C-alpha cells in the first residue's frame, strides 16, 4: 500500500512540476489588482463575462469594473496595446495552451481604446 502511495507520489510530483514549467508565460499588461484573485479568475472568468454580458446587453446594467472593456484596458500589452496580437498576449497565450477557441474578439475590440483613438487621428 505504502509502495503504491509513494509510486503515485513519484508520478504526480514531476507531472505537477512539468505543468508549472510548461504553463504559458503571459504578457499581463498593466495588470494590478483584479476584481478577483488570479486563481478565481483563471477558473471562473468565463462565467463572470457571460453573466455580465447578459446583464449589460439585455438589461442595461453596466458595471464598470467587470466590463469586458475593463479586462482589455488592464490586460492589453503595454507594448502593442492588444490582448490577442502575439503568442504570449494575455488572452491568446492561455487559450492556446488550454486549446479553447474564443470568439469574443470577432466583435469586441482587442485593443485599448486609446490605441484605437490614436490610430484614427494618424
Amino acid at each position, binding site marked *: 500500500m505504502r509502495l503504491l502511495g509513494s509510486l503515485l507520489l513519484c508520478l504526480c510530483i514531476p507531472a505537477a512540476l512539468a505543468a508549472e514549467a510548461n504553463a504559458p508565460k503571459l504578457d499581463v499588461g498593466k495588470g494590478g489588482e483584479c*476584481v*478577483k484573485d488570479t486563481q478565481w479568475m483563471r*477558473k*471562473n472568468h468565463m*462565467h*463572470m463575462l457571460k*453573466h455580465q*454580458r*447578459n*446583464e449589460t*446587453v*439585455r*438589461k*442595461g*446594467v*453596466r*458595471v*464598470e*469594473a*467587470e466590463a*469586458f*472593456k475593463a479586462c*482589455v484596458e488592464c490586460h492589453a500589452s503595454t507594448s502593442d496595446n492588444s490582448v490577442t496580437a502575439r503568442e504570449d498576449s494575455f488572452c491568446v497565450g492561455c487559450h492556446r495552451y488550454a486549446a479553447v477557441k474564443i470568439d469574443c474578439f*470577432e*466583435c*469586441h*475590440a482587442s*485593443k*485599448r*481604446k486609446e490605441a*484605437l483613438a490614436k*490610430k484614427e487621428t494618424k
Partner: protein
Amino acid sequence: MSDIDTQRRQFLKTSAGAAAIAIAPGMMLYQTVRADTAAASSKVRWGMLIDTAQCKEGCNDCVTACNKENGLSGKTGATDSQWIRKIEIKDISNGHTVSLPMMCQHCEHPPCVDVCPTQASFKRADGIVLVDRHLCIGCRYCMMACPYKARSFVHETLTDQNPDVPRGKGTVESCSLCVHRIDKGQIPACAEACQNKAILFGDLNDANSEIYKKVRSAATVQIRADLQLNPGVRYQGL
C-alpha cells in the same frame, strides 16, 4: 455628480463582487451590488422627434456622426451596414421635396422581435430595440420583417471596432439609439451632430422633457402608423 454620490460609488465598487458565492465548482451565484448603472427602467420611453422643416437637403451630418460613433465604414453598397440614411421624398404633383433621416424606429411592438427565432432581437425596458449579437445566428428574418428596412447584416470580418460598440461578421445590426451613450447620460450621436436641431431626442414619458411637450403641441406623425407598431421615432412636417 454630488460628493456623497461619488463616495457611495467608490464604496460600492470596492465591495462589489464580494458577495459572489460559489455554489458548485464553476457555478456562481452573483449577488453583486450594482454600482455603476442601474437597469434600464420601463418608466422611460426613449424616442426622437425629427423636424423635416429643419432638416436640410444634401446635409449628411447625422449619418457621418453615426458612422464615426459606431465604427461603420460609411459605404452604401448592398453589403455595407447602414444604421441611418438620408432620404428625399418628392410630391410628384407639385415638386415639393422633404429631406429626412431614417433609421430603426424603435417600435413598441417590433416585428423584428416577433420573428426572431433566438430572442436575439429584443426590446429593452426603456423602449430601445436591440440585437443581442451573442445570440444572433444571422438568419436575417428580422431584416425581412422590418417595414423600415432599418437593419443590416455584417458580411465581412471586422477589425478595430469601437470598444463601446462591439459588432462583427454574421450578425444583424441596426440603430441602437446609441445605447452606450444613453447609459452614460449622453444623447445619440446623430442628434448631437445635427446643427439645424432637426433631431430632438428625449424621454416620451417624462412630462418635463421637451419631446413630451412638443409631441403634444405640434402635429407629428409616425411612419406607417397603419401598422400600429407605435414607433418611438416621430416626424414633423410630413
